[in-house]
Structure formats: C-alpha cells, structure tokens
C-alpha cells in the first residue's frame, strides 16, 4: 500500500509538471500577438518600417479610442454587423435547403452542380456590377453580395454532408418505416449537420472577407466603407482600426460558431 501511495505521488508530480508546461504553452497564445505588436511598435518608431504606412500600434489604439468615444465606430459596427449577419443568413439558409435537395435527389444534384461549379470561381469583385443592376444600391445589394459568397461553400458542404451519411442509417430509417418527411428531419438533416457546419464556418470567414467589397457600392457606413474610404483618403490609422475590427469580429464569430457547433451536434 505504501508503494501505491508513492506511485500516486510520483504520477501527481508528473501531472503537475505537465500542467505547468501546458499552461506555459497556452500562454504563448497571448504572448504572440503582444510580441507582434511590440515588434511592430519598435520597427515603426525606429523608422525601420515606414511609419507613414504602418503607424505604430499605440497611434492606432489612440485613434481607435477616439473613434469609439465619438460614437463613429459604434455606428459603423452596428451597420456592418447587421449586413454581415443578414447576408450570412441569406446565404446559409437557401444554401442548406438547396444542398439538402441536391444531396437527397440525384437528378437535382446532377442538374444544379455544374451551374454551381461554373459560378463559384467567379470573383465577387466581378459580380458587383451585376448585383448592382439586379438589386439596386440599397441594403439589398450589400446583403446579397455577402450572401452570394457564403452560399457556395454551404451548398457544397451540405451536399457532401448528405452524401457522406453512412448507408446503414438509411437502412435503419427504412427498416423502421420512416416516412419521407421523417427521413429528412431525423436522418438527412442531423446526419449532414457536421459537414454542413464546416461549410457554414467557411461561409462565415468568407462573409467577413467580402464586407469591404460589399460596402464599395453605394454605402455610407460600415467597417468595409470605413476601410476603403480611409484608405482612399490616406488615413491609414483609421484604416488599421477597420482592419483590427474585422479581425476581432472574425475571432468573435468563430467562437460563436464553435459554440453553436457544440450545441447543435452534442453527439460528437
């Protein structure tokens, strides 16, 4: 028995050591951005990189705080967020519906997929004029621009998700007499969810990447607008504030989606 106690003690020490190491490693996650900022600050102040194009982080933060205080930032953020979320939903929901239909019905899949494949590589930037003609210059066109870029990864992954459902589950559904609707709700939807969610995650990343392009048409506000107008006027500090916001929202969204994922697929 003494021996076991000694063993437990040994393993406890070992475990503690590993914990400490682990904590050190995860602390690197916070260290690295700080490092980057510090290097940037030094380089920028010492003139090794051109401070006119890369203003030091401290200057950017000052601008950030000023913009925050004046309420300007709040205004841009709320508008962009509503566009991103609107566009995201407008891309994700039809994407899922079409993807499920394509996944479940081979003729639809064969009919639609060449169109999807042909349209997917077309750059958003090149689609702007077409979107403008069809949807006008209002909020519609911005939301549709984002939706359009979100749509493709969601459709493709939903189809992949449906196709990847293990055929044994289809047998189970058939054997236990599931109706068409039940099959859809109990098998196809949950079965394709994990892969579908990966598509949605990709869609989220793309929605953010598209916001600048979307807000280049007829916008008067928004983070994308802030970025390109600031840049057009060579107000680089303001531009960097915009970039930092985008980066920040990318982080928040990915956290949110990971949380969603845990909620939606608790069985994983």
């Amino acid at each position: 028995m003494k021996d076991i106690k000694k063993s437990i003690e040994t393993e406890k020490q070992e475990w503690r050591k590993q914990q400490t190491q682990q904590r050190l490693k995860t602390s690197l996650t916070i260290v690295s951005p700080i490092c980057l900022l510090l290097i940037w600050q030094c380089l920028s102040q010492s003139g090794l990189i051109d401070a006119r194009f890369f203003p030091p982080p401290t200057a950017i933060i000052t601008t950030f705080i000023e913009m925050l205080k004046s309420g300007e930032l709040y205004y841009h953020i709320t508008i962009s967020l509503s566009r991103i979320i609107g566009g995201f939903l407008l891309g994700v929901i039809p994407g899922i519906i079409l993807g499920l239909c394509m996944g479940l019905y081979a003729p639809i899949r064969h009919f639609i997929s060449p169109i999807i494949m042909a349209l997917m590589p077309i750059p958003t930037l090149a689609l702007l004029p077409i979107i403008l003609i069809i949807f006008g210059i209002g909020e519609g066109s911005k939301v549709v621009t984002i939706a359009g870029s979100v749509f493709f990864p969601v459709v493709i992954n939903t189809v992949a998700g449906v196709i990847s459902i293990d055929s044994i589950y289809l047998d189970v559904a058939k054997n236990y007499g599931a109706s068409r609707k039940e099959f859809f709700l109990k098998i196809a939807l949950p079965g394709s969810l994990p892969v579908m969610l990966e598509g949605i995650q990709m869609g989220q990343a793309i929605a953010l990447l598209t916001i600048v392009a979307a807000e280049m048409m007829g916008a008067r506000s928004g983070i994308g607008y802030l970025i390109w107008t600031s840049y057009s006027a060579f107000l680089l500090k303001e531009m960097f504030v915009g970039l930092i916001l985008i980066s920040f929202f990318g982080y928040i969204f990915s956290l949110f989606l990971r949380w969603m994922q845990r909620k939606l697929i608790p069985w994983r």
Partner: protein
Amino acid sequence: MGANPKISIRELTKVFYKKQNSVTALENISLDIEEGEFVCLVGPSGCGKTTLLRILAGLENQSSGDFKIERSTIERPNQSMVFQERGILPWLTVEENVAFGLKMRHLPKSYVKERTTYFLNKVGLAKFANMYPKELSGGMKQRVSIARAFANDPEILLMDEPFGALDEQNRYILQEELLSIWSETKKTVLFITHSIDEALYLSDRVLLMSAQPGKIMEEIKVDLPRPRKLEDIRSNPEMASKFIDIWGHLQVEVQGSRL
C-alpha cells in the same frame, strides 16, 4: 402450427449483376421457421447470410422465389432488424434511439414513453437514457439496438451478427439478456453469427450455409432445455460433438472459399 409457419421462404434466389459479372449470393433457399422459434444462421464469410436477412427486411429484392411472414391479428410491424454496433443513430440519445421505431409509427406519446422506459429498464440502461451513443461502450450500444427492436414489437426479429464486435465476456452477458427478453416475449428470431458457441447457446435450430452460392447445407437441432447456462454446453459432450461437427463443416467451406 406446423402447417402455418411464421416465416416461409420458397426457392429464394438472389443474383447480383454488375457489368457482365454475376454473383449468385443465394441459390434456391427454402426454409420454414415456426412461431416463437430462435433460429441461428451460420456460414462462411460472404455466403449470403446478410443478403438473406436484408431480403426478409425489405432492404433488398430477391431475384426469384418468394417469402412470407405470417401476420398476427394485432397492428404491429412486420419485422425489425438489429444491426451491428454502427446501427444506432449517433445523433439521437439512448432514449430517442429506443423510441425510434415507435415514433415512426406515430403511436401516442404516453405509450411510446411507457414502452421505451420498460425496455430501457430491461436492458439496464435507464440511467443512460439521456446520453448520446458516443458515451456508451460497445456492449451498451448493442443493448440500445436490441431494446429498439423489441420495443417496436415486430412479428419477427432479424439480427445480423449483433455481438460480432464484442469481447467474449460482454458477449455472453448480452446473450443472456437477449435470451431473457426473448423468453418473455416469445418472438420469432432469425439470428446470424459466426460463433458456433453463440449459435449453440442461443438457438433452437442452427442452419448451416455453404460458401458461394449460399445454400442451406444442414440443419442442427439444439434440444438443450432452457434456461441454459454456458457451462452446461461446455461440459456437455453431445454439444462438444455438435460443435466439432459444425466446425468441421465450416472449415471445409472456409478453406474451399479461400484463395
């Protein structure tokens, strides 16, 4: 009774055809299974056991021949299948999995709840009702699968190597449980296995199949009284000779089908 078997299969043949290439999986299977009988199907890998079960389950169509499952008066499904470990739906909780068949039949909620709880208790999973399959061990998953099939109260039960992936000890525990539920419900069961011990322990009759094309070669009645204990079979010299008999038969078939 003998005149009206629960399952009657007549000259069932199944051919798989693909690109000029045909595989005869089942050839002229004729077979009667009585109401309440527990029949095991044993045969070398690829002899068509699964194919036969899938045809009976309506998941595949025969090429020729017929089969018939006698219906009782009560409103109940024709058959339910117990799949291998992967056969429970990972996105449903244990309880939802067990209730799956009943829900598909749109039975009243209270009834579904009652039967689900009953069978969860039977297989000793009441405590795990709200867990997802990923949290269960292999043996627990098979319990869910069995509870689901019995809860559905079908005319007959089809089981395709349900315990194939379990270790010997857990396998025995599940076999015991299966027999206990079966003896209570007196369902007709057609059970596939590779394990001769399992077949001898569980069944009233063992059907031996030949390697491709699958035919029924021999029929071995197991008239050991129930409830049985594994020890009885192991120490019973008659069973030992039955084992060696089946073993020898399978060895020939397996060796014959090996490359």
